[in-house]
């Protein structure tokens, strides 16, 4: 449906540089996720694409057309807001029909489209209610319904699930992914939750303080983080970082090993340590280990792991999975 291209996009609020300069190409039909800690500029970047904010400088192109000076209405994008932003004075039917009304579509077509969308989203019986009479999940569906009826060039989502409770969030996540598969539309999705990003994205854009740190598929980011920031942000629990003598041995300023890439071994491992506490999740156990020079590490062990706090254990990292970073926090790769 659409290719969105950002060229050297810059945004400054007063003295604060929020987006220092972003280049990005969003491919046709892909599900791209902007992820980063809150306040890093994800929403700002999305709103720049939507046209809700003006860029300080730079160019945005949609399907090759320069839309830098085009108002939001002219960009033919749909957006789902974190707060849903439904029109409280209109019924669900009117809410969903609004973009079509604005596009001056004939009444009968609007009716058909609205009912189609409502059926798809299980909203048929709520069509004549006001948003105030719906639950959070239903409101979210209405917001999505309003976005999909119009067949826009691309969908923009700004943390659409963050106001839902955990169970509902997982359901909606699946529904949105399903929707993407059915419609094959370009979707730009903003979240601060890296699990959401990993599970949903075709490609992930990791942002830190307005800078695009790395763009790539979830596995790329997981396996080959370009920077210390990406390495720490992607993956749960967080990657362990070790500095000092041990890192120097690997000719790096910092090395990183994910908890799942450290094994508990009997006999002599690479690092010795003492268990501080254990978290049992059933399938896995996470051990917090005080490991001498290596510092405090988190290690993944099998669910049935029986070690107790204060037990001494030996640890062995998977040498192929040790990430090396230089003093600037950039990854050191052998060739």
């Amino acid at each position, binding site marked *: 449906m659409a290719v969105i291209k950002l060229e050297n996009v810059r945004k400054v*609020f007063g003295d604060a540089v929020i987006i220092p300069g972003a280049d990005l190409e969003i491919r046709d039909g892909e599900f791209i996720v902007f992820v980063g800690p809150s306040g890093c500029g994800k929403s700002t970047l999305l709103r720049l694409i939507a*046209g*809700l*904010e*003006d860029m300080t400088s730079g160019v945005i192109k949609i399907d090759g057309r320069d839309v830098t000076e085009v*108002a*939001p209405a002219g960009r033919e994008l749909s957006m789902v807001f974190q707060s849903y932003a439904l029109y409280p004075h209109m019924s669900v039917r009117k809410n969903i029909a609004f973009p079509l009304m604005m596009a001056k579509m004939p009444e009968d077509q609007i009716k058909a489209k609205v009912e189609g969308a409502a059926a798809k989203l299980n909203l048929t019986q709520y069509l004549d209610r006001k948003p105030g009479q719906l639950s959070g999940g239903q409101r979210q569906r209405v917001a999505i319904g309003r976005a999909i009826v119009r067949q826009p060039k691309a969908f923009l989502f700004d943390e659409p699930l963050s106001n839902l409770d955990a169970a509902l969030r997982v359901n909606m996540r699946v529904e949105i992914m399903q929707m993407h598969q059915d419609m094959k539309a370009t979707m730009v999705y903003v979240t601060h939750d890296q699990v959401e990003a990993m599970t949903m994205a075709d490609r992930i854009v990791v942002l830190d303080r307005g800078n695009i740190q790395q763009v790539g598929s979830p596995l790329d980011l997981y396996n080959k983080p370009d920077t210390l920031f990406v390495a720490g942000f992607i993956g749960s629990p967080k990657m362990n970082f070790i500095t000092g003598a041990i890192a120097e041995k690997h000719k790096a300023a910092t090395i990183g090993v994910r908890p799942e890439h450290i094994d508990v071994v009997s006999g002599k491992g690479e690092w010795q340590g003492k268990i501080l506490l254990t978290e049992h999740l059933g399938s896995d156990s996470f051990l917090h280990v005080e490991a001498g020079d290596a510092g405090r590490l988190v290690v993944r062990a099998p669910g049935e792991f029986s070690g107790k706090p204060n037990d001494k254990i030996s640890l062995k990292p998977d040498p192929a999975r040790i990430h090396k970073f230089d003093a600037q926090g950039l990854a050191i790769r052998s060739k």
Partner: protein
Amino acid sequence: MATKQALVLGKWALLPSVAVLAAWSFVPLALTIYFAFLRYNLQDPENTGWAGFSNFYYFFKDPYFWKDLLNTILLVAGTIVTTVVGGVLLALLLDQKFWGRGIVRLLVIAPFFIMPTVSALVWKNLIMHPVFGLFAGIQRFFGSHQPIDWFGKFPLFSVGMVVSWQWLPYAALILLTALQSLDEEQKDAAAMDGTSTLNYFRYILLPHLARPITVVILIETIFLLNIFAEIKVTSVGGFAGNLTYLVFSQLNDATDVGMAAAGGLIAVVLANIVSAFLVRMVGKNLEA
């Protein structure tokens, strides 16, 4: 945040209001300043020209000026003390649980909606009249043969009474709203901590009410400085006139535009001193 288009439009949407308000607040003021230095009497069209500071000079020399200035201050201060103290008590009462709270609220707030001319005449004639008034009736009931002639003997006090009756509901309503914003949990926590009523009032309520009380004081001051109708329709301007009334009578009775303008300027200065505080108060609120 708005986009450029909205900002540009917003800028122009604001202009008409700003322009008319600027005209309204500066043109009359400028003309008043201009007139204050003119010899200009409507009954004496021949006598024109610059008056220098003589309008001010005569105004300050006029014994009415000092009396009316004092009246203005007494009226404002007296009414504020009455309404704020009464308002706090009334608000505390209305914040309690009792039967018919909604109706009592309506009864208490009613005086605020009464036209100043009406309340002044009703109080003067039906309530405080020395012979047929309600107060006189009560006094007679208690055996007095010489009921007080309120507006005759104590004109300023009587006007203050009428004005306080009108403004007490305002103070009470605003303080009540502020009280209700004190959240239930805070009240309950205080009760759980075994806070005594007096301490509760002293350490929780009063600090919470400090801001709304200041707002009430400042806004009442602005309006009370300009009390006019109550004085005019009760015909006590000669005894209990305030600055506003004096300006009116200079214009209306003495037809002296220059003098009236000088008086108006003094009123402006007085009001500005108060409004400087008020604007600062509200401004603080804006940023918060």
